[in-house]
């Protein structure tokens, strides 16, 4: 009975919100978002009144051809710094809660990887790592970037954990990689402050839109984020799959 009441109440609240949004004339209806009034016109036209042509425009205000990446790493790069901190502190928290001072060993689950899984994962491991690296490297041109790329690298590690129940990645190495990548990101930001005038400013040349080696610090930052996200999530996976060494 309580469930039905709660259900009716929440769905009623939902309908109330829907009607309130409908009645709200300034709130753009679904599908008719009026971009002219929004800040995002500047991100699309990159602040220039002449057209940005893929492969021709030189030195645009913000390099990446992928406009979402130009927002995530160039226009609003401070958000992404906060974002990376969220994953950093979650990985730290998981290590604090699940990890322990003593040595760790793999948890014996009643799940023995059969032949198919072992062989299949060896074949798939290479492909997934390659896709992850490709997605990270081309973050500023095609959809993807640091977050999906790093997560793909972590899922490749996950595959290794599944394929062999004695496998343990070198956690110490992940921690060092994670720390270096994070500190380099902040150092690049501070470099922007020292060399140019603002924190996280793109002080390298932007080149032509669409080239692989274009848009200044954006690919560098996205590679650092890819490495950081990959090592953090792999560390989390290791924490979830190991337990205290029974002394």
């Amino acid at each position: 009975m309580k469930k039905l009441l709660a259900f009716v109440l929440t769905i009623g609240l939902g309908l109330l919100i829907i009607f309130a949004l409908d009645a709200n004339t300034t709130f753009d209806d679904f599908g008719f978002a009026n971009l002219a009034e929004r800040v995002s016109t500047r991100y699309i036209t990159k602040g220039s009144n002449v057209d940005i042509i893929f492969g021709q425009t030189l030195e645009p205000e913000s390099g990446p051809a992928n406009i979402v990446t130009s927002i995530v790493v160039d226009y609003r790069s401070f958000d992404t710094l906060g974002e990376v901190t969220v994953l950093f502190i979650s990985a730290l928290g998981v290590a604090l809660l699940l990890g322990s001072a003593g040595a760790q060993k793999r948890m014996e689950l009643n799940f023995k990887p059969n032949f198919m899984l072992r062989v299949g994962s060896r074949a798939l491991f290479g492909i997934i790592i390659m896709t992850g690296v490709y997605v990270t490297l081309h973050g500023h041109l095609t959809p993807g970037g640091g977050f999906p790329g790093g997560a793909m690298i972590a899922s490749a590690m996950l595959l290794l954990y599944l394929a062999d129940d004695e496998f343990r990645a070198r956690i110490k190495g992940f921690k060092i990689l994670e720390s270096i990548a994070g500190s380099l990101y902040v150092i690049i930001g501070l470099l922007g402050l020292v060399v140019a005038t603002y924190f996280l400013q793109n002080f390298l040349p932007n080149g032509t839109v669409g080239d692989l080696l274009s848009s200044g610090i954006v690919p560098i930052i996205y590679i650092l984020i890819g490495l950081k996200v990959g090592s953090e999530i792999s560390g989390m996976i290791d924490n979830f799959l190991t337990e205290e060494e029974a002394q």
Partner: protein
Amino acid sequence: MMSAILLIAIPLLAAFLSILSKKIAPVLLLLVGAANIILLWFVPSGIVIIGDFEMPFGISLFLDSYARIALYLVNGLFFIVTILNVVEYKKLSSILLVALAALNGLLLTGDLFNLFVFLEVAGIAAYLISTTNKKPLATFNYLVIGTVGSILYLFGLMILYGMFGTLNMMDMIHEIQTASIAYSSLILPFFLMFMGLGIEAKLLPFNAWVKGILKHSNTLSGPMIASVYAAAISLMFGRLINNLFMFEGKLLLVVTVLLALGVVLGEAMAFSSKKAREILLFSSISQACITVLLFVNGIIIWAVYVVIANALSKLVLYLIINRATKETKSDDVNDLQGLFAKNIFVGIAFTVAALSVMGLPLFAGFVIKFNYLTQLAVAGQMAIVALILVASLVEGIYFVKLLIKLWYSGEKEINVKFDLPYKAVFAVVTLMIILFGLYSAPLDSLDNGIDTMQDEIGVIYNG
């Protein structure tokens, strides 16, 4: 070169480096904590642009005297709490560094989505600090309710983005003021954001997590969550209420009733509880509601003073009670009987802090309470004035009851050893409370003008 961004970037860099070796982490924590306070002295005020994209397109920080006071308070308290606990909670050094960066980010940022990100970072740091209470279910409750709070805030913010198309705080305020829209369409986003932030700021109807966390707090999580986080989040909340939220008509009524309810229920629950820490946490809930009530009625400067006075007194109260509970293994009022019989000095510090929170004359609390009550009366909110007076009466009764129990020793002897750094902190806070109580001229030197966001908008948009 010396810009406000360093207050966030340096702790973040230290946090990333601190996981390399466990030995340098506590050193880095103390070093960066002190460096932040000194740095704050040299940092110029004004708008700090990030990433070379001006106002509404890139993210910018905003440092005015309001933010500067808030930063001095939060960084100072943070440094005190970390010094007292760094030896015992060495493992949490990296998390505390990230918490410092997040709290500075909360107070400085001029971008509403950035505020959401820093709310999440500070929230996750607080969940991890609360795991030191060894009560996993209370931490789980805190995590779930805190995340729901952030989601409600983001939901309200995205509706505002759908309406006005910008995420920058000043740009949004300008759009809201100049757009000719029906006020009814603003009620939904404002109320969602108010609820989201209300959960973080411990306002009554949404703070089911507070009891679980602060009831089992220790000398780190108690002062950190009840004093440092509470001060940072209520000052940030005050900034949003003063400038962004325009409470009128029905919404103002609903918000005022909610807060008034919070004050009364907070006091009632504190009155009826037997555990020392429960009394403190309910009293800090009702203080939080009073603070937000003042912000909603536009009494900015006295609300800031209430936050400062509360933060300092709660720091002392929580440190003493948690320190004593660690020795006597229980915080029931009769187990702590006669706590101050042996250490008189600590007793005086506790009494001064408690009486200041209560608002007794001769202490800073009285001056602040007297002033904001007169301002409320001038603003014609007689109902609220009466309500706060009744709340103070109830507060007086249960605090005096607690003090009598703690001063006059019962049958068993308790001697809790407070080492020197604790006593030093108590001495400083007691001195400040008495000093500002007697000589209250400097309090009047500041006025509502410390929050200069509206003038900044005027400068930018009207040329």
